[in-house]
């Protein structure tokens, strides 16, 4: 296997007095799907935001394709074109149609000619199963559809890595499946993905590796089967037990 596409080295993030995470190191290989799990407030989302430079880390380094993107001379706008981000609350551009949401990065950031940008945007919308919603505004789409447009918008930039920040947490239960379905397809197409989620089913079925984070550090990581059935740490076991009980209850109710 060649060198990791994304390398996080000793990354630390502090807000005021609060240490969000400390000395986090993580290698992400090309085509790998990594699911980050852990209790809320352990810095999972902040880690994603540091990786695409939306939040500056206090110390440590991040390498993308061998380039240090945390270096002072790195161009953050260029870096973000290579790192796709999908947000918990979708954050589609409200004044643009689904098609224009996907197109705007191509035509305004990549300066692609209109016709080509349109063609590419339609291709990406089709990839998430929404070509028939191209001219709908976000306000006219369901949450699940909005999130799929959000994924298409990020994919359109041809990123090296896709970051998903709890992509289904804001969705009604019956809409979660369609979003996870798109993500599963991407994983099968060997998109490199870093996913923060509480969807344990997705983690078990789709992830190549699961990373368990707690209180600002990585407690344990490994193949889904190892983590689910042979966790090395007591905390991992407890967390997985708690969350699968919760998950099981939800399924019983539904």
């Amino acid at each position, binding site marked *: 296997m060649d060198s990791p596409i994304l390398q996080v080295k000793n990354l630390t993030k502090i807000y005021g007095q609060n240490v969000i995470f400390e000395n986090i190191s993580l290698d992400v290989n090309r085509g790998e799907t990594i699911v980050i799990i852990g209790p809320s407030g352990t810095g999972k989302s902040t880690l994603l935001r540091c990786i695409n430079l939306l939040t500056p880390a206090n110390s440590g380094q991040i390498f993308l394709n061998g380039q240090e993107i945390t270096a002072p001379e790195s161009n953050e706008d260029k870096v973000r074109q290579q790192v796709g*981000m999908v947000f918990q609350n979708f954050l589609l551009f409200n*004044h643009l149609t689904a098609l224009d949401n996907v197109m705007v990065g191509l035509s305004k950031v990549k300066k692609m000619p209109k016709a080509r940008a349109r063609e590419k945007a339609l291709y990406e919308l089709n990839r998430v199963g929404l070509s028939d919603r191209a001219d709908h*505004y*976000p306000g006219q789409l369901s949450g699940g559809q909005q999130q799929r447009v959000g994924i298409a918008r990020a994919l359109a930039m041809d990123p090296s890595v896709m970051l998903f920040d709890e992509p289904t947490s804001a969705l009604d239960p019956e809409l979660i499946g369609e979003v996870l379905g798109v993500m599963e397809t991407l994983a099968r197409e060997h998109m490199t993905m870093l996913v923060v989620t509480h969807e344990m089913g997705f983690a078990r079925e789709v992830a190549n590796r699961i990373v368990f984070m707690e209180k600002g550090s990585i407690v344990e990581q490994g193949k889904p089967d190892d983590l689910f059935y042979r966790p090395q740490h007591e905390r991992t076991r407890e967390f997985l037990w708690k969350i699968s009980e919760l998950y099981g209850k939800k399924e019983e109710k539904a």
Partner: protein
Amino acid sequence: MSDVPEFFIRFWPQLLQGAGITLLLTVQGLAAGLVLGLLSALARVYGNKFWRGLAVGYVELFRGTPLLVQLFLIYYGLPGIGITLSREWSAFLALGLNSGAYQAEYLRGSILAIGEGQMMAGRAIGMSKWRAIWEIILPQALRLAIPAWANEPVSLLKSTAIVFLIAVPELMAVGKTIAARTYNPIGAYMTVALVYLAIVYLLDAFLKWAEVRVKIPGFEAEGRKA
């Protein structure tokens, strides 16, 4: 009062000309004010300390003093420091500067209402801060601003009446001339009032039409949640 129809027949060329100048002053002041207001609003929300301070100073100064004082300072005061402007330029400058201060506040409010998430999403696909402001924030903020902002054209239109004091031949000045010529101030000013009313009516209709034109499904000032 019964003279009003007669005044319209007798003085329609002057009234029309005055109304034209009034409308021109309004449109010019509004345009200048929009540019100034937009720049100040952006400076206040996104600018560094220097630009923020400058914008705050401008807005406070021009909202905090009477338009008439501003007009006189520009027309009678500036020549004192060697800057002499024509009546028309003075009127344009006073109205534009004054309107800009009010528009800055309308626009700042709607920019803040858009929320940081939209900016973050723009940055996340590689837009620079200013590109995201231009492509993402402003198209939404300007739409959101329309209902409140629509007060400004009407308010400015009526404010233009004071520039007759520096003898710009707009609608109010025409009214004064008619009053003096006919010794009938009630009829003359009633006639002028009706013309103002008609222009305001047309302006409102245009603004409503524009608001509907640029409306985006699921994205409105009222019930904007989507």
